[in-house]
C-alpha cells in the first residue's frame, strides 16, 4: 500500500529534480554581471520560457516547402519584417526578439510535431504560424497541452476559440455578412450561386452565407457546388451558372483551382463586368497566378488590400517591398500575419510579462494603431475587431477599394442563428 503511494510521489519529484539539474548548467552559463539584473528576467518570465536578459525567442511555423509554400511564404516574410521592425525599435521589454523558424512542410502532422518541438525543446514565448485550418486543428491540442501562444493569421471558418490562440484574420461572419449586405443593396441581388473547394472552410462559410441570404436578405441560393482541392475542371458548373443566371456568383475556391476556374469562366463568355462575382478566397497573391486580365471586375471581400490608402499602409508597403523585393504583392493574410508579432509585443508590454497565462488574460482590449489595415483591437474571444472591405479586381492585379464598413465588425466565432 505505502509502496504505491510512494511511487505516485516519486515520479513528479524526480521530474522536478531532473529539471532542477538541467537548470544548473544554464545558470553557470550566465555571465556574473547579469545577476544584478536577474530579478527582471525572473519577474517577467516565471514559467521557464526562452527569455534571457537580452533576448526572447519566438517561433515561426509555416510551410516553407510543399503545396502550401506559395501561400505561406508571404506570412513568413511579413512576420520577419515585423520582428525586424520591433527589434529596430528596441525590442520587447528591452529584449531583442530572436526567432526559430520551423517548416510545417504542408503536412499537418509535421505541424503538430514542430509546434511541440518549439514549445517543449525551444521554450518559445509565442508561435506565429499555421495557415490552413487543417494545420491549425493539428497544432491546437499541442498549444493547449503545453500552454503555448499561437498567433494565427488566416481568415477561417470560425467555430473555434481558445485561450492559447489569437486569431488575427477574420472569422467567417466578419468576412461574409457585410459583403453580402453590400452586394444585395448595391446590385439588388436576389439569387446566389455558391461554388467552393470541398473542405471545412468553404462548407462552413457557405452554410453561413446561405442562412444570411435566405433569412436576412430574403434571397435565394440557386446552386451550391463543391470541387475537390486542386480540381481544374469547372465546365459543368459554369454551364449550370449559364442556365440558372444567378445575380451573384459567390465563390470560395482555393489555391491553384482558382487559375482554372477564372480562365474557364472567361472562356465560357461570362463577362465579370456584367456578371457580379463575389469571392472570399482571392487576394493579390492568388491574382498573381490567375492573371489580372482573367479576373478583372470581380469583387473580393477582405479586410485588407495592398492598395488601401492610409498612412500606416503607406509606410508598410514600401518597407515590405524593400525587404522582399519590388515584385512581391501583399494579400490579406500577409497583412494579418504582420499583425501577429506586433500584437504579441503590445500584449507583453501591457501584461508586463512573457508568461503565457498573463498574455492570454491581457490580450482582450489590446489595440494596434499602426496596423496597415487601419486599426485593430483584440476581442474577449481572442479574435480581432476589424473592418470588412469590398474591393474590385483591376487588370494590374490590384484591388480598388469599393466599400468598407463604417465601424469595426465584432468577431463572432459561434454565430447564433447561423449554425
Amino acid at each position, binding site marked *: 500500500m505505502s509502496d504505491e503511494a510512494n511511487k505516485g510521489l516519486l*515520479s513528479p519529484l524526480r*521530474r522536478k529534480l531532473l529539471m532542477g539539474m538541467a537548470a544548473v548548467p544554464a545558470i553557470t552559463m550566465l555571465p556574473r554581471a547579469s545577476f544584478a539584473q536577474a530579478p527582471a528576467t525572473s519577474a517577467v518570465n516565471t514559467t521557464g520560457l526562452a527569455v534571457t536578459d537580452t533576448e526572447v525567442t519566438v517561433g515561426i511555423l509555416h510551410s*516553407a*516547402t510543399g503545396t502550401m509554400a506559395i501561400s505561406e511564404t508571404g506570412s513568413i516574410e511579413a512576420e520577419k519584417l515585423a520582428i525586424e521592425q520591433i527589434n529596430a525599435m528596441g525590442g520587447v521589454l528591452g529584449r531583442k526578439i530572436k526567432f526559430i*523558424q*520551423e*517548416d510545417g*512542410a504542408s*503536412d*499537418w*502532422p*509535421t505541424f*503538430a*510535431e*514542430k509546434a*511541440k*518541438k518549439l514549445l*517543449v*525543446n525551444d521554450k518559445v514565448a509565442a508561435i506565429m504560424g499555421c495557415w490552413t*485550418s*487543417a494545420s491549425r*486543428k*493539428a497544432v*491546437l*491540442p499541442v498549444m493547449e*497541452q503545453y500552454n503555448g501562444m499561437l498567433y494565427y493569421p488566416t481568415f477561417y*471558418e470560425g*467555430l473555434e476559440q481558445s485561450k492559447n490562440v489569437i486569431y488575427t484574420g477574420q472569422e467567417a461572419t466578419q468576412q461574409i455578412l457585410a459583403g453580402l449586405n453590400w452586394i444585395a443593396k448595391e446590385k439588388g441581388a436576389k439569387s446566389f450561386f455558391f461554388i467552393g473547394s*470541398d*473542405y*471545412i472552410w468553404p*462548407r*462552413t462559410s457557405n*452554410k453561413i452565407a446561405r442562412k444570411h441570404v435566405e433569412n436576412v436578405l430574403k434571397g435565394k441560393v440557386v446552386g451550391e457546388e463543391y470541387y*475537390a*482541392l486542386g480540381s481544374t475542371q469547372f465546365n459543368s458548373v459554369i454551364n449550370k451558372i449559364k442556365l440558372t443566371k444567378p445575380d451573384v456568383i459567390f465563390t470560395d475556391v482555393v489555391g491553384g483551382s482558382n487559375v482554372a476556374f477564372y480562365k474557364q469562366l472567361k472562356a465560357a463568355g461570362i463577362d465579370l463586368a456584367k456578371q457580379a462575382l463575389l469571392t472570399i478566397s482571392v487576394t493579390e497573391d492568388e491574382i498573381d497566378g490567375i492573371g489580372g486580365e482573367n479576373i478583372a471586375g470581380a469583387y473580393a471581400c477582405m479586410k485588407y488590400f495592398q492598395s488601401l490608402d492610409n498612412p500606416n499602409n503607406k509606410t508598410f508597403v514600401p518597407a515590405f517591398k524593400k525587404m522582399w523585393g519590388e515584385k512581391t504583392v501583399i494579400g490579406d493574410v500577409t497583412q494579418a500575419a504582420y499583425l501577429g508579432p506586433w500584437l504579441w509585443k503590445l500584449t507583453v508590454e501591457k501584461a508586463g510579462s512573457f508568461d503565457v497565462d498573463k498574455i492570454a488574460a491581457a490580450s482582450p482590449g489590446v489595440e494596434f494603431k499602426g496596423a496597415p489595415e487601419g486599426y485593430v483591437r483584440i476581442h474577449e474571444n481572442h479574435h480581432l475587431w476589424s473592418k470588412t472591405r469590398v474591393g474590385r479586381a483591376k487588370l494590374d492585379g490590384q484591388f480598388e477599394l469599393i466599400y468598407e464598413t463604417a465601424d469595426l465588425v465584432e468577431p463572432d466565432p*459561434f454565430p447564433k442563428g447561423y*449554425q
Partner: protein
Amino acid sequence: MINSRFFNRSELMGFIALAAVLFVILPLTLDVFRLNLVAKYLTYAFVALGLVLCWGYGGILSLGQGVFFGLGGYCMAMFLKLEASSVENTKIQSTPGIPDFMDWNQITSLPLFWQPFHSLTFTILAIILVPGLFALIIGTAMFKRRVGGTYFAIITQAVAAILTILIVGQQGYTGGINGMTDLRTLRGWDIRPDHAKIILYFVEVLLLFACIGIAQFIRLTKLGRILVAMREQEDRVRFSGYSVANFKIFAFCMAAVFAAIGGAMFALNVGFMSPSFVGIVPSIEMVIYTAVGGRMSIFGAIWGALLVNFAKTSLSESFPQLWLFGLGALFIAVVLAFPNGLSGLWADYVQPRIDRLFASRKPKPDWNDNSVADGAPAE
C-alpha cells in the same frame, strides 16, 4: 540454444543491438519529446517490416502500404475520437456527443458504421481484420489472375489514391483533409501527458519485437523458403505443385496487418490521424525506408525507418528551406552506392571485420554456421 537456431550469430547480434538501443539506450538518453518522436518513427518500422516479408522475400512490390497503415490508424482514431467527443466535451456543438467534424458538416447523428467503435475490443479486432480482409480481397483479385510485378505495384498505387479521395471527399464521416484531431483518452486513460508517452513507447517497442519474432518465424519455416523460391523462379514453384497465388496473398496480408498495427500505434502516439498518411507519397516513402535499410533484412529495414525519419526531422530543423533537397540527395546516394541498403553495407564491410575478429580469437572459424543459414538447402 533455441536462440542460436532461431537467429544465426549475426542476426542475434542485430537483435541484441536493436533491443539494447530501443529498450535501454534511447529511453535513458532522450527526453520525452524526442522519445515520442522515436515512437512515431517506429510506427513506420512496422510497415518496413511487412515490406521485408512481402517485397524483400516474396518479391511483391506494394506501393500502397499507406492504405493499410491508414486503415489501422483510422480504426484506432475512430475509437479515440468517439471517446473524446463525449456529450460533456462537445457541449458547444449544435449536436453534442458526436465528433466535432460531423457537427461542422451538418450531420446530426452518429453514422451506423461508427457505432461499433464505442467498443475497444471491436476496435482492436478491426485494426487487424479490416486491413487484413481488404488485403485478402485485393490479393485474391490480383494474384489469382496472375497479375504481378509492375502491374500489381500500379494497382496498389491506384488503391491508395482512391482511398485518399474517398476519405477527403466524405469529410462528414471521416474528417476530410483535416483528419481526426484532438484524440485524448484511451478508456479514460489520458494518452497525452509525458508518462503516458513513455508507456506507449514501451508498448510499441514490445509489439515491434513481437512482429519481428513472427517475421523471423515465417522466414525460417518452409513458408519463408517458398517465398524466396517464388521470388527467384515463380514458374518452378508453380510446377512443383505449390499454389503460388495463395503464398503471395499470405505475404501481402501479413504486410498489411503489420502496417495496420503501425498505423494504430501512430494514432495513439501522435494523437491524430489524417489522409496525408494514406496516399501515394507516404506509401512510396515507406518503400524508400525499406530500400534504404535493406529490403532483405528485417533489422536493416527497421534501422532504415528510424534513420530516414530521424534525418527528416533533423534536416528540416536545421535547414527549413533546403531540407528536402538534402533528403533527396541522401536517397540517391544510398541507392546508387549501396543497392542493398544499409544492411548490405553492413554485410559487405562491417560484418567481415567482425568475423575476422572472432576468427582470430578462435582457432576454428565458424562461417559454416552462416553459410548454412543463408543458403539453406531446399527441403
